[in-house]
């Protein structure tokens, strides 16, 4: 008896899943692949865009590397918002994306953050050329034992942090243990859970507690996040409307309000 019931249940589920999905009232829809570091601004952008235009957005969040692999293997996305410039460029080079559509929608800002309040010179800008307020003096003053950063091999924020460390310490190892997260959000998580003293995070992640230090823009390579329309998209016109929205004043305002710069 139970076996029969399980069989019936499975069959019912199969039939249900095969039914055509009920579409929203508006006919037009775009499928957008978004780097997971951009979740919060994207949610606001989605609301604003859907009110402005009669288009519903389906959004898939994952790391840029995973989204890239999905696109190359035929994922049905119309627009790709990467967390870097490399992947969109590779996609346009290999004809997976439309060259003319590529542009920088956001510029990331690298900062240092600790969960503890009112630490040494909190809120200051650290720069290489300043004798007192630089990375080495911060690490010394706080007696940092462990710090976290994103993986420089593929995360732009990780690469930026690595360049900063190289400028400060040259080929020597920094006087603290480096803990690498697979993404900038993991680098953040390691500090937030108290497991490391301080971390290189994105300004867009900055919470309203703890201490943070800004890093001079000229001390690390720019963190440009690029977007492209994919060649496989059948909705170039709608996709273009979305791209234009990102570059509009309203779009830029939303992006800036989340701690990014725009061009």
């Amino acid at each position, binding site marked *: 008896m139970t076996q029969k019931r399980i069989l019936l249940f499975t069959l019912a589920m199969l039939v249900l899943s095969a039914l055509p999905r009920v579409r929203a009232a508006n006919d037009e829809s775009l499928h957008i692949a978004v780097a997971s570091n951009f979740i919060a601004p994207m949610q606001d952008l989605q609301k604003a865009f859907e009110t402005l235009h009669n288009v519903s957005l389906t959004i898939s969040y994952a790391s840029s*590397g995973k989204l*890239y692999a999905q696109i190359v293997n035929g994922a049905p996305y119309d627009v790709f918002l990467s967390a870097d410039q490399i992947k969109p460029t590779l996609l346009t080079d290999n004809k997976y994306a439309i060259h003319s559509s590529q542009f920088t929608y956001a510029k990331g800002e690298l900062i240092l953050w600790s969960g503890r309040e009112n630490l040494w010179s909190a809120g200051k800008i650290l720069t290489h050329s300043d004798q007192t307020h630089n990375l080495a003096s911060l690490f010394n003053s706080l007696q940092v034992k*462990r710090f976290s950063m994103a993986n420089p*091999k593929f995360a732009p924020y990780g690469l930026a942090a690595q360049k900063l460390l190289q400028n400060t310490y040259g080929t020597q190892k920094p006087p603290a*243990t480096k*803990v690498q997260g*697979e993404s900038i959000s993991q680098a953040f998580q*390691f500090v937030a859970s*108290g*497991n490391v003293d301080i971390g290189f995070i994105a300004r867009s992640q900055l919470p309203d507690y703890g201490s943070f230090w800004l890093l001079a823009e000229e001390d690390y390579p720019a963190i440009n996040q690029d977007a492209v329309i994919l060649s496989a998209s059948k909705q170039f016109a709608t996709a273009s409307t979305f791209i234009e929205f990102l570059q509009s004043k309203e779009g830029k305002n939303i992006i800036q309000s989340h701690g990014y710069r725009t061009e």
Partner: protein
Amino acid sequence: MLSTSDIDAIVLTLKLATTVTVILLLISTPLAMWLASTRSWLKGPVSAIVALPLILPPTVLGFYLLIAMGPNGPLGEFTQSIGLGLLPFTFWGLVIASLFYSLPFVVQPIQNAIEAIGEKPLEAASTLHCSPADRFFHVILPLAKPGFITASVLGFAHTVGEFGIVLMIGGNIPQETKVVSIQIYDYVEALEYTGAHALSGIMVLFSFLVLLTLYTFQSRGKASKFSLGR
């Protein structure tokens, strides 16, 4: 074909899996013996806790372990108070996490094997004035041997295949916490698919050979088939 960091990752993975398997056999044997013989009401809850890692996503385990082993977590407070410091991002942190993660894969085959022996041989041994230690080494161990072998192989292989937890509490430190699965993930994220292929191929081959050995071995012995989540 393999880079030095690949070799480092493989060596670290094997070291981790060996350490975890040895410790797990020591923990799981008494636990499995108790579970196989007890009539206590605790049997249900304990069995459920042991089996939890089978159905929990590794990210859940990893997330809670990160918090528990952190400076404000109970494990973290304990390790700090005895002077060990904090465990996340260290080899021993991974060992502790893997102990939880692979526990059911070691406990359950041993428990099955011991239950299959039944009470009769043990009662017979007792009437012949066997001490509990004698019963364990001369009755339980030989009769439940296939269960112990299955447990060791599965515990080892499952630890080798660990990913989500290490991602959460590893911190990607070469020769300390950067295991093979993390190395593969890094290759894929960096779009270095050649490197990813080499290591992934080795993992597939390794896993197949492990299971092949296990099933070939089991089809010869009768006791303790590979069964999980009973």
